[in-house]
């Protein structure tokens, strides 16, 4: 066979020539592939974000309630008034508590699923995490409203095992207590923990599964106790996964406005403040300034997470 026969003839059809042209210009091909989604995200998403951010530099005329379209930092200064600053502190504290708690509750699940489970057990663990993750957000919140209600299942369970005094004691705690579980910060915290927990488990489990078995065997061969192996080999390698999970738990708690509205003491979180300011209060500049807070916090958080190697664990 001659060389000429071995090389396919140049295509004559339009699609064939187009395809050849794209193969020769890979950069153009990549650009064409990227263009639709990038245009969509740039126009719809970044464009919307930009209009929102612009609003945050406007201010509200106090007497008329009209928006003054002059650029000013006055609205940002309002964030530091005690009433508004409290909202920010409360939300960040809740996000931090939820992230730490979900790491503590989630780690054993991820650890057992990654290191001890095979076959059917592994699938069962996986589904047990995925089903609550994917079932409706509002239905989960609703389930907790049912459970936390004064006449609900938790009060009943505490009474059954004779721990009602413990429950009463927890609800009497200053600051986090309240008249019932569904109107206290404890309730809000439990619902947040429940709803975001799977987001912590999945990346942690993925990181644990990537720990090479050889490293653990080597650590044991060198005389380390199981605890020492865990502390010095497994935990450092799993940390990027935990940090990756905390990106979700932290960010999702920062922005949520439905859970504290339905289960909680009625005091505002950032999300509710945004919702009320843009809705009934009609103060869009302040609402926009409030949304900048989680963006900034998540920007810092993502930068730190990136240095800790969390992006590879996503």
């Amino acid at each position, binding site marked *: 066979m001659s060389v000429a026969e071995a090389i396919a003839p140049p295509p004559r059809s339009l*699609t064939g020539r*187009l*395809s050849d042209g794209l193969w020769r210009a890979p*950069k153009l*091909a*990549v650009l064409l*592939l*990227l263009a*639709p*989604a*990038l245009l969509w*995200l740039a126009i*719809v*998403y970044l464009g919307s*974000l930009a*209009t*929102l951010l612009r609003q945050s530099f406007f201010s509200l005329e106090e007497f008329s309630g009209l928006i003054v379209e002059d650029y000013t930092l006055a609205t940002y200064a309002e964030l530091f008034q005690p009433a508004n600053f409290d909202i920010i502190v409360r939300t960040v504290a809740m996000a931090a508590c939820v992230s730490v708690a979900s790491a503590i*509750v989630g780690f*054993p*699940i991820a650890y*057992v*699923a990654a290191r001890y489970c095979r076959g059917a057990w592994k699938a069962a663990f*996986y*589904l*047990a995490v*995925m*089903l*609550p*993750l*994917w*079932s*409706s*957000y*509002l*239905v*989960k919140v*609703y389930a907790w409203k*049912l459970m936390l*209600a004064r006449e*609900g299942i938790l009060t*009943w369970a505490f009474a059954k095992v004779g721990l009602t005094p413990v429950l009463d004691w927890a609800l009497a705690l200053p600051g986090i207590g309240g008249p019932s579980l569904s109107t206290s910060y404890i309730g809000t915290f439990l619902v947040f923990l429940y709803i975001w927990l*799977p987001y*912590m488990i*999945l*990346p942690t489990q993925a990181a644990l599964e990537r720990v090479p078995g050889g490293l653990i065997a080597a650590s044991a061969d060198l005389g380390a106790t*199981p605890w020492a*192996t865990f502390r010095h080999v497994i935990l450092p390698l799993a940390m990027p996964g935990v940090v990756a999970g905390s990106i*979700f738990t932290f*960010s999702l708690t920062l922005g*949520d*406005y*439905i859970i504290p*509205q339905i289960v909680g003491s009625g005091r505002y979180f950032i*999300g509710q403040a*945004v919702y009320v300011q*843009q809705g009934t209060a009609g103060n*869009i500049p302040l609402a*926009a300034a409030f949304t900048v807070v989680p963006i900034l916090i*998540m920007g810092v958080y993502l930068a730190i997470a990136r240095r800790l190697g969390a992006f590879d664990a*996503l």
Partner: protein
Amino acid sequence: MRSEGSLAVKIAAGLGLAFLIAPLLVIVAYAFTTEERSFVWPPPGLTLKWFGVAWERTDVWAALTLSLRVAAVATILALILGTLTAMAVARSRFFGRDAVSLLVILPIALPGIITGIALRSAFATFEIPFSFWTIVVGHATFCIVVVYNNAVARLRRMSGSLVEASMDLGATGFQTFRHIVLPNVGTALLAGGMLAFALSFDEVIVTTFTAGQQQTLPLWMLEELIRPRQRPVTNVVALVVIAVTFIPILLAFYLTGADEQTAAAAGK
């Protein structure tokens, strides 16, 4: 590693799983309760009556139909945009590749309320009235990432030599896509599409800002949560919603296997 520590870990894991599953079982139990006004536990009696009552409610049906239509259109848009981006990112290295990944992930990495209020202020600025399409635009934006993540994971595992062999044998780029790439990533796309559908069907935070007076099923549910009108009907709808979202998740699980699902793929 199998030592005294492992039993404690297993017990902690078991308790954690119970914590994850119990609330879903509670929903099932409440759908059958005879109690109408309070959330009393245990249910004083069991009945099927509320399923019939819920079936007759036109507002529930209207909300359900709107949710299904929005989810279908948003999923199609997300499938197209997500697949194209995934093909670009998976098979080549180019300047700004990380920035593209970041941009795709951003709508779920930032809290949903930001996406929502940003879209609303943009609609207000450009005087776009609320409609079916304003909801779809919001949903498609955060659904892209689900499709993208599934497609990228599969494309990275697909051997590049398959594509090269096809091209060497004289297939054009489009034929290669149709006959080689698509069959390979098909199940991943199907899985991504179903997850996107489930995500859109369930979304409430962005929808609050883009729906205006329209009511999707989650918005109906939220209304009931804040101002309960008929608790037993809400219980039944909650059970139905759980059942409806489980089907695509189970299918997606069997189509891709456990290894491709990550938290990022599931982000809200």
